[in-house]
């Protein structure tokens, strides 16, 4: 009897946890859509086609196209910056580093992954941001600074994911390449990487997702302009930054409030797309 009760209650808890997970996913979509509707109804397509984001002016304008573009720019550039560097670091750790080197550097990178984004943002804001006016760049917070902050923020996940993919390739495959006289770098780049390709691509996708969802770093380091930057040293604001900085001030249930939910909805669509790509890649690797 006692055994029965234990069994049933454990199963109940397992079921509850599953229900909560699914409910959370639907709940998030539901709320985002529900709270977005007022803005979509009253502002309409202008939300996505206008660059004019002036929610506190009279009359208010809610064009988030430049915010969307900025989120994409930051994601693309950030990923392009981080992935190649972390790839080569992973190659070094996988095939050239000694066991001790690999362990220490990997541990260092894992500690970095734990540093809160607000601290990384604060460090670069304090020490790097003032440099810009000194060298003639008018905006102390700008796209470049945000990219630098994002680099240190995402180097851990990118490197670790790629490294784990490379490490999971069977050693015999690498030995076969070496047995043909191939140099180690060629083996790692042509054979190991190809064998680990879906893992490497997954690392790229997850890195991009991390960047698109990052708030504090781009908020504190990117500057306040809801405009598309013309050059790297221009300030810019992303969807995430706008939500975090304006929501605390936005009047509840106002159009501004609703428009910020629209921004959140766009973000969720981006991240869901990234995750779907990731799922497809992981399915491919389970050949």
């Amino acid at each position, binding site marked *: 009897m006692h055994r029965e009760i234990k069994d049933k209650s454990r199963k109940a808890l*397992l079921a509850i946890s599953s229900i909560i997970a699914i409910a959370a996913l639907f709940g998030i979509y539901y709320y985002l859509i529900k709270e977005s509707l007022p803005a979509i109804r009253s502002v309409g397509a202008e939300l996505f086609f206008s660059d004019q984001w002036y929610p506190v002016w009279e009359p208010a304008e809610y064009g988030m196209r430049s915010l969307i573009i900025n989120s994409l720019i930051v994601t693309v550039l950030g990923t392009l910056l981080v992935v190649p560097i972390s790839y080569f670091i992973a190659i070094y750790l996988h095939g050239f580093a000694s066991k001790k080197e690999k362990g220490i550097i990997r541990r260092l990178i894992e500690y970095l992954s734990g540093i809160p984004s607000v601290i990384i943002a604060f460090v670069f804001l*304090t020490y790097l941001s003032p440099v810009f006016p000194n060298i003639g760049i008018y905006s102390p917070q700008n796209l470049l600074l945000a990219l630098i902050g994002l680099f240190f923020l995402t180097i851990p996940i990118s490197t670790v994911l790629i490294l784990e993919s490379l490490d999971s390739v069977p050693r015999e495959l690498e030995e076969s390449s070496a047995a043909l006289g191939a140099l180690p770098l060629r083996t790692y780049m042509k054979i190991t990487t190809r064998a680990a390709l879906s893992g490497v691509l997954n690392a790229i996708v997850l890195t991009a997702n991390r960047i698109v969802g990052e708030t504090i770093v781009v908020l504190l380091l990117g500057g306040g302009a809801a405009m598309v930057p013309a050059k790297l040293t221009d300030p810019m604001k992303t969807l995430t930054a706008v939500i975090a900085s304006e929501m605390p001030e936005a009047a509840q249930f106002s159009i501004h409030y609703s428009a910020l*939910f629209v921004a959140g909805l766009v973000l969720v669509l981006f991240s869901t797309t990234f995750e779907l790509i990731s799922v497809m890649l992981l399915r491919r690797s389970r050949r």
Partner: protein
Amino acid sequence: MTITKTNGSKTVENKKARIALKILTYFISILIVFVFILAFLPGLKYWSWEFFSSFPEDQMTGGGIFPAILGSILLTAVSLVIAIPLGIFLGIVLSEYNLSYIKFAVTILSGIPSVVFGLFGLGLFCITMNMRTSILAGGLTLSLMVLPVISSSVYEVMRSIPRELREAAYALGARKSEVIFDMLVPSVRNSIITVSFVSAGRVIGETAPLILTAAVFYATNLPKNLLSPVMTLPTHIYFLAAAYGTKARWMAEGAASVLILFVILVYTIAFMFRREKK
């Protein structure tokens, strides 16, 4: 004998490649160490009993960060108390019951930006459930946010249990739930502790969702109950950096040092538990 090394030999080529990669790796590593140092050291000089035990004063030019420390601890505790058990159960569901739609849901959830969880928490907990800006709202939001992370890690841990252990357990005539909870989970106890500590590190550092659901810039009193708003270390640093400029920088530096220390401690404990004792 042409298999000997010559000037253009392959062995030299390999050496060049190795050195180039080594320089890259060490360069980035040194930069990372720099970032740690810049985050931790400057704030140390502000550490004092007063700093840890007082409220901020004089527009952030004096006093201390006690409410922020307390708030961080409370919020972390609330969210982990909910998320860790749930996460373990969910991780078990993922690994022991092959339901692809749950795996799918958890994967999508794990990618959702933290600020969007903040929006959800704001809409559901703060407004609809009328919790306002409170520890409870923030804690629930954070626990949802960290739930996919914990469950994925637990899933990986459970998956790594050798097949023989599972088969032996079933062979003893145990039911599925007994096999799982009485035999499998205890065998990976240390890994689950690691996962818990890593998730604690994650939660302590979160900022964006709390700005929307739990944190205030300045709390005059300590939180009375779970429905009170709080200050937390990361949100405090954020507010100082965003709104206060150089006058309050000292406080942000001091708070950053404390936060980093917490995080390093938590991660170090997590790493200690990584290897299961056989």
